[in-house]
């Protein structure tokens, strides 16, 4: 059987359908940066170890460097370019600005996408390796600094801005208590002007 090694695929990125031809070897990270000119998602290690390429797939954080583009067809992809609500920054972006949650900024798009998901995972009641008692009866642990450090451990910062990053995630988590439609909702409504 002669197998085609490339495909024309349609990716749903930040609420827009983008059709592109890809060699099957293309990762989602390279498709975003090299084919779709979405260079906010950064390439660090390209081995799934640093988190710089973190994006949201169907609302869940994932590393784009180990995700084949062809296998991402049909899934809702949210990159750092798609998390703000027009000119209004996402609360996590605002918190990183307010608290200097970065130095050089290279890891920041991945940190922010990851933190958005961390706050949602915590709100959904997911335990972490820092959670002493994982049994559901124990309830959701508060998002302490230890919990944030554990949950954000897949995002490395070579500048070592971790102290401010932890504070920014904590502040954003508090801000999320206020009424706010999350990033996934806004992707869904981006083309219908509902909730703008």
């Amino acid at each position, binding site marked *: 059987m002669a197998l085609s090694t490339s495909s024309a695929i349609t990716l749903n990125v930040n609420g827009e359908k983008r059709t592109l031809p890809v060699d099957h*070897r293309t990762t989602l990270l390279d498709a975003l940066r090299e084919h779709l000119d979405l260079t906010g998602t950064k390439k660090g290690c390209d081995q799934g170890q640093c988190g710089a390429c973190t994006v949201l797939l169907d609302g869940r954080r994932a590393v784009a460097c*180990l*995700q*084949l583009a062809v296998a991402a067809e049909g899934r809702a992809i949210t990159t750092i370019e798609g998390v703000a609500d027009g000119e209004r920054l996402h609360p996590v972006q605002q918190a990183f600005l307010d608290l200097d949650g970065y130095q050089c900024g290279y890891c920041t798009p991945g940190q922010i996408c990851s933190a958005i998901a961390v706050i949602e995972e915590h709100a959904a009641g997911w335990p972490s390796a820092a959670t002493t008692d*994982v049994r559901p009866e124990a309830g959701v642990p508060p998002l302490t600094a230890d919990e944030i450090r*554990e949950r954000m451990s897949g*995002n490395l910062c070579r500048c070592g801005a971790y102290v401010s990053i932890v504070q920014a995630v904590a502040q954003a988590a508090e801000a999320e208590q206020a009424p706010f439609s999350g990033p996934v909702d806004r992707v869904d409504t981006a083309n219908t002007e509902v909730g703008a």
Partner: protein
Amino acid sequence: MKEFGYRRVSDVSGAVALLGAEPDARFLGGGTNLVDLMKAGVERPGLLIDVRELPLDRIEATDDGGLRIGATVTNSDLAADPEVRRRYPALAQAVLAGASGQLRNMATVGGNLLQRTRCGYFTDLTKPCNKRVPGSGCPAIKGEHRNHAILGASEHCAAVHPSDMGVALAAFDAVVSYETAHGPGELPLTEFYLPVGDTPHLETALPPGALITGITLPPAPVAALSRYRKVRERASYAFAIGSLAAALDVQDGVIREVRLAFGAVASRPWRAREAERVLAGGPASAEAFAAAADAELAAARVLPHNGFKVTLMRNLVVATLTELTEEAAR
């Protein structure tokens, strides 16, 4: 990376048939290990069969009080599941101790079992490796082997299996289900991985062309009081240098049932049956815990730089069982 075809399948029989027609095909789940190995040139499939949309993404209670976990359930969903957390807390803890939030969202249960060792020689194409190129030699035996096996290894390979999840599954008598072109089959997890011997490239007892469809956890009341402890060289997001899944049922100071499995010490999750045998029916004391660990570790064969793992595992057994004993008394 070698060029490859890509097919997405929606039913199990179609996936198995496709693999049968393309001998150099591989199943693609989350891709967190396979794609990485393809980039390194270790894996060179001609076709990827994407199984992520197979209807194997559910966790269901079985009639006898156990759980059945589909092969495409993600690590994240497994660790967040209320019944897993309630009935087998050490399994949730083990999954949460592995990788990062991003990788756990992508990785699947079936893929976790089939992930390859992180031995540096295995992923370095410039070096010999009996697992990658049978008969080429094992540089780890006289080279870098600080995190290599102390149990069940051979002169041909001392690589360790990196899974945290598998260690808890071994302790809880999990059974792996698979499908082949000739029908379904099952393997207990403790028989899923083959002995190393002189064939370290043959890793599992899965028949050729098989697709893992799920894992069944039999009912295990003892698992309600269980713990996974992982020792690593940084606080988070690192592979184990030693880990332990333990479950304990103790009443009036006497051990009614105990389950122990070691991680990062062998080519497979290591069920510590000798330690369990020594402990069963005896006192729940630090001395007994140490004696049980010593009985299990008597079979250890260490290399020049990994002998510390014997002490590490002994301490892990004593500390964890002591904690569980105290918790049982509360």
